């Protein structure tokens, strides 16, 4: 019985690593939520690519995608995933988490490419992509022109432009 209690306590400690959100000293933020909303940006994702729990989010998405049947359903879900990647990218850039920028940008580019291949975009979706482009360009220009981060974000701008 004592062993069960001890093991339960340890399990609670283990789970608390997932339930607590990490808080650090306020890092640099380029645009406030109000400014982001001007580009029709709704909200960040709950789990972003800087978090250690991120792989579980990806595994869940992959499983959901594999269990999505029918062409239209798969297109809809691919579009949802593209939006998620975009929001994650905005979070990383806007919060100046440059250590995660290369991987997040590459992941975004991959999904943008997949979206281009699989999804027949509606006019609303194309309008949203134009808003995404203008937001990415604004975020890009917060870095020195020609710097590594500027170039990486420019790649995402180019990839996004190729969607429409």
């Amino acid at each position: 019985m004592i062993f069960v209690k001890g093991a339960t306590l340890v399990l609670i400690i283990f789970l608390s690593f997932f339930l607590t959100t990490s808080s650090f000293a306020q890092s640099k933020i380029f645009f406030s939520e109000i400014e982001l909303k001007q580009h029709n940006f709704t909200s960040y994702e709950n789990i972003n690519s800087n978090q250690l729990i991120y792989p579980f989010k990806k595994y869940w998405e992959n499983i959901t995608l594999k269990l999505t049947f029918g062409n239209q359903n798969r297109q809809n879900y691919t579009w949802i995933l593209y939006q998620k990647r975009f929001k994650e990218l905005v979070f990383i850039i806007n919060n100046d988490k440059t250590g995660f920028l290369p991987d997040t940008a590459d992941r975004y580019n991959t999904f943008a490419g997949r979206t281009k291949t699989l999804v027949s975009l509606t006019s609303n979706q194309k309008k949203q992509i134009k808003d995404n482009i203008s937001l990415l360009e604004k975020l890009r220009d917060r870095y020195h022109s020609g710097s590594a981060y500027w170039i990486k974000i420019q790649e995402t701008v180019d990839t996004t432009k190729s969607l429409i």
Partner: protein
Amino acid sequence: MNKLILITAVVLSVIIRLFLIINGKHVADVWAIAKMGEVLLNGQNPYLTLDFNVYPPLSVFISALSQITGSLTNTSFHIIIKIWPNLADLATAFIVYKLLIKQKIKPVFASLWTGFFLLNPVSIIISAAHGQLDSVSTFLVVLAIFYLNTHPKISAFVLGLSIAVKPNPLILLPLFLLVVSKKIRIRYLLISLTPVILTLIPFIFTKPLQVIGNLLTYSGITDFGFAAILRGIFFQDNANPNLPALLVSQFLNISKILLLTSLAFIIFLLRKKKYITVSILIVYLLFISIYFGIGAQYLSWIIPFAVILRQRMVLVYTATATIALIGFYLYFGPDLLLGKLAGNMLPFTNKYMYYYFYGNLLLWITCLIWLIYLLIKIPKFVSFIRSAGSKDISNE
């Protein structure tokens, strides 16, 4: 059948170790150990010359001997230095087998357990890839257990040799002193301290306090255990795996105090029990669970003692420690694990942080659960050991 199991395990173990040794590189701890021997061969005192903490004197002599052997045989230092811990692992396996047979375990199960030790990835990685000398020290501790009942003076001397190679067996000395009879306790203590005192003599004449300070002020490195979990949490801020220096210093100090008080408590709990191997396992688990400065090589300490006791938790421990080790090496230094096979792999690739973090989280939880389980069983040692189907080496 048991001979076939043993021979197969030995052959496989040797092949894997040789493969890792030959493909290894002269980096990290191997470089540091080489420097210790190099400085000694140049006629200088490594404890005064080098700007990092130097291992106890026997390690320095092993390094110097490896340098000489390397130049005589025209073989790289990183290959010669790794021979010692790998030979030590093979020798430990031999003693482990003898101890299992002594406990009247069936030869086929004794062979399987010994085979598990020989092929244990944690031991193989630390000895053959990382190139640390902890296996030499661990072998000597196991030998000290082997001789404890029959030849206590040899046991004391061998334990002393282990302390002269690496300092961690020093925390086991009180356990050995509790197990031996009161009549020979003082003699055991004096004999066990003799090797490290004798081997220190050549280095201690100039600036003795500085030499002893170099030996005793090493606080470990925040690579595994709870420190690694914290590093993972801090990594989420901006992919920086390093903890703030002030936080490290504070946590190290707190963990030292916690460890010392916990050790004192454990030794008090175990004072009337004469089961040396379980006591060693408990102390090492406590160390890995509580202390903030856990290095990679410390993870190998536990394994032979867990195998002697046929503790099944060592399977979970091995799995989680292996994931933690692989994540650690792939993130911080791929060439430490993979050597020449690392190719163009660069350190600090973010995706390997997940293996490092989750491996350490699971490892730490495993150690805690295992420790709690063993501590709960202390009052019922005899029935616990019988129910686990194992008999410890007792002094009764």
